[in-house]
């Protein structure tokens, strides 16, 4: 079935058009994004059960963007009387004027930006889904998740608890300008299992796995397979030792390959950072940043995942950009305002945490292309190294191209064979071009992960997905 576009947004479309008409007499450019996204979060554990009709991406509100004298400004709100849209328009105008007066008094110069083109386009995209979160039989779902939690508690060694979490959101977004009316509706869902157990030293270990995808709660059925993997993951963690710090040959599983694509590289070519001269990547356009095996794509059209959409939060159609082509950096990704400043085309990567937040250049699907090697070939080629698995977190450093990835487990390889030794946790640090330049083998199967969220620094959380095949490279582990 198609995920139906929000009837609420259809209802307020005419008054929103009136707002644009009213404000157009004061500003050179006026557009707005209006959102109505509904969903749930369910958390089930041995001792606590929660059900919330909210999550990171549920929202209802509107943000107006205007341009005057080279300055883009925004007014975000969530109260509108459809019978009196002019009142909302007046409030927006007055609020911004009050701010302008203060800025004029302080004499803050403006970073002048050209007006964006407002090209005519009407669009309605309703993506496919089997089920909608708002119509879901939550009683059955809670039972299903509870059974998984109990199964985890029973099958995982020493389990203190087994947390099962489900999130599903039906997103509807409307972008309006004088010439454009874009509507989209889609559903994404993710589920995760986190289990806790103490090792022999009393340290509590956390085993975590997740599923995600573009679609409704039907995606959560995959957790039935996930729960069967948890006992082995926990057993590995319970016997794990600390890694001896140093440089190693590594094989990254697709989840870690995706983490590298996202943290190590993806953030480094978000082109709003080029405008601010905060990205080393700007100096490497059309230069080598990785081995010949490295080809990387980024865009909401690259895959069907939690981060896929038809247009971004600035009304730019979604894209599919080849960022790295056989090791050569070709381009980054760019929101609309940054593109105006850099004199390039936007790539459909302008995203907001929600309607009340500013747009930044943000990632969507960030993927390494596949190669031809098998995992067995990769393992056989390693004298002493680790197969890394289990994404925990990462942090970007676009200015210096540093890398911090925290990984759950490393499985030791010696002389081409797995030894059975596990190390945990593992922090991978280094310099991005070195990491990518040392990629010498790439697997043939792609996997995309979309659990969790991505921040810009320590704020502005958005959904992203990343992935790739197994990769062999070298890195510093500690």
């Amino acid at each position, binding site marked *: 079935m198609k995920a139906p576009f929000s009837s609420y947004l259809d209802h307020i479309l005419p008054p929103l058009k009136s707002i644009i008409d009213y404000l157009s007499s004061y500003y050179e450019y006026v557009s707005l994004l209006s959102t109505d996204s509904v969903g749930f979060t369910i958390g089930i554990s*041995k*001792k*606590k*059960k929660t*059900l*919330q*009709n*909210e999550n990171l991406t*549920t929202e*209802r*509100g509107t943000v107006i963007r205007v341009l005057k004298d080279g*300055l883009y*400004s*925004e*007014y*975000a709100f*969530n*109260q509108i009387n459809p019978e009196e849209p002019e009142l909302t328009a007046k409030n*927006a105008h007055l609020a*911004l004027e*009050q701010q*302008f007066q*203060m800025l004029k*008094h*302080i004499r*803050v*110069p*403006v*970073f002048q930006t050209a007006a964006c083109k407002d090209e005519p386009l009407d669009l309605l995209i309703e993506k496919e889904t089997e089920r909608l979160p708002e119509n879901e039989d*939550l009683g059955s779902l*809670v039972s299903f998740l509870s059974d998984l939690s109990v199964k985890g508690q029973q099958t995982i060694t020493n389990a*203190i*608890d087994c947390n099962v979490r489900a999130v599903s959101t039906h997103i509807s977004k409307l972008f309006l300008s004088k010439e454009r009316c874009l509507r989209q509706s889609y559903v994404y869902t993710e589920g995760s299992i986190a289990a*806790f157990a103490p090792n022999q*030293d009393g*340290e*509590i*270990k956390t085993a975590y796995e997740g599923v995600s995808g573009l679609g409704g709660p039907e995606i959560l059925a995959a957790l039935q397979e996930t729960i069967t993997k948890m006992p082995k993951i926990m057993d590995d963690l319970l016997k794990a030792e*600390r890694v001896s*710090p140093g440089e190693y040959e590594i094989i990254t599983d697709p989840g870690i390959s995706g983490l590298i694509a996202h943290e190590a590289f993806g953030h480094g070519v978000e082109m709003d950072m080029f405008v*601010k*001269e*905060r990205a080393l990547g700007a100096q490497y356009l059309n230069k080598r940043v990785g081995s010949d095996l490295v080809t990387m794509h980024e865009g909401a059209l690259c895959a069907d995942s939690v981060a896929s959409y038809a247009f971004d939060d600035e009304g730019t159609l979604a894209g599919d950009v080849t960022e790295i082509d056989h090791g050569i950096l070709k381009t980054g990704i760019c929101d609309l*305002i940054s593109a105006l400043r850099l004199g390039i085309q936007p790539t459909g990567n302008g995203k907001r945490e929600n309607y009340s937040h*500013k747009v930044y250049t943000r990632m969507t699907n960030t993927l390494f292309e596949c190669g031809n090697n098998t995992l067995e070939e990769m393992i056989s080629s390693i004298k002493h190294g680790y197969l890394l698995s289990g994404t*925990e*977190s990462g*942090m970007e*450093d676009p200015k210096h191209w*540093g*890398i*911090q990835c925290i990984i759950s487990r490393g499985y030791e390889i010696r002389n081409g064979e797995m030894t059975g030794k596990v190390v945990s*946790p593992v*922090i991978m*640090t280094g310099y991005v071009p070195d990491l990518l330049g040392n990629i010498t083998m790439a697997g043939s199967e792609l996997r995309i992960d979309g659990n969790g969220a991505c921040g810009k*620094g*320590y*704020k502005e959380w958005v959904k992203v997905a990343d992935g790739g095949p197994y990769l062999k490279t070298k890195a510093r*582990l*500690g």
Partner: protein
Amino acid sequence: MLTRIIDQIHALGCEIFEITEETINTWEFYLIRHSLDQNRVVETKQFHIKLYRRLNRGADIGIASGIISPTLNDTELNAELSKIYLQAGLTCNPSFSLNHSSLPPIPSLDVDIEAISSPLLKSILEIPETETERINSCELFVSKVQKMYVNSNGVTYRMTYPCSMLEVVINSRENGKEIELYRNYTFGTCVPMLFVNRIKSAFQLGKDRLHAMPTPRLTKSDIILSGESAVSLYEFYVSKMNAEMQYRSLSDWTVGKEIVPDPTGDLISIYAVSHLENSSHDYPVDADGAWIQDRYLIRDNIAMSTWGSKQMSDYIGSSNSSSVYNIIVSGGKVPAEGLHSDEYLELFDFSDLQIDPVGGDILGEIRLGYWHHGGRIIPVSGGSISGNMQDVLASIRFSIETVQYDNYVIPKETLLRNLSITGVE
């Protein structure tokens, strides 16, 4: 609208509920160098609803929650509340009761967003820069937050408070090389000079990062943590006294007992307060309508008091508890110099220092540190630290001097022994 919501909740037959009406007004300013990139105004209102349902003849309670948009008409509101109330029957938890103690009136702060924004913005723009140190960009968010809480036991409060954020990126450059330092400050009431001074200090740190050598391969080292990253360390202690962590057996720190057996270092005290000047959480009530009592969570290495939601506090038998937001750490016996030895690594900045509240793992990439070695102080960068809190708690030491980072007052310097260092050199 609040009255409409309460009326409809009653009409559903729901006897137990909590509603928080939250109105947020924010002014946002984005600067690239000293020029205005964008300005924004945000005006939002939301109603956070929790509905409860007695289950199994009162032995258990079901809970469901949601956010009500102010745009809902009566029919839509009824549908939404009915849905949430129905859902409350699906999540069976042991019974507990909502807070029932009436609250004294909370003095409302007069928050003038323009009056906060203007001098702060002006001060930032006027910070003296040099040819080698400058502000790359910054973001300033100034908010007025108004909350009104009501529960089915008649507990109600209103409060207004300021909550703001300043994000600053600083560049230091020399001979064609340029680095950046990232700073993020959250605060309540604002003293512009406080941030001006912090940014000026960051300029000096930027110079040091520019000249930093690769972190040496030390394998193991005593570490002095200075800088805001150290807050993560003390958040670990606070999380271990959280009621939910204890209820779920993820913490075994028991009230009345030592948190660390046989300590060889300093005995830590963690004091939670409702009022902390300039904190972004400077208010006297928590999200469940409980008055926040100033109290020790830990005193001289002895667990004194837990904190957390009413639900979890009831479950562990601490019914009179509350959440806590402002933390003061103490226990150091010597000034910072007294923690120093001939050889140690002082770490100031990390990419993202992670300390796992459940397992205690410590991990972080070093962005700026100082290697005190052979009588010299050498700025270093790169590599990482790793370890576990279980291995450092007994011997931890901290300075008498303290410094405030938003809602945490922590020792200016903290000594951790024998952490693993993955160097670059």
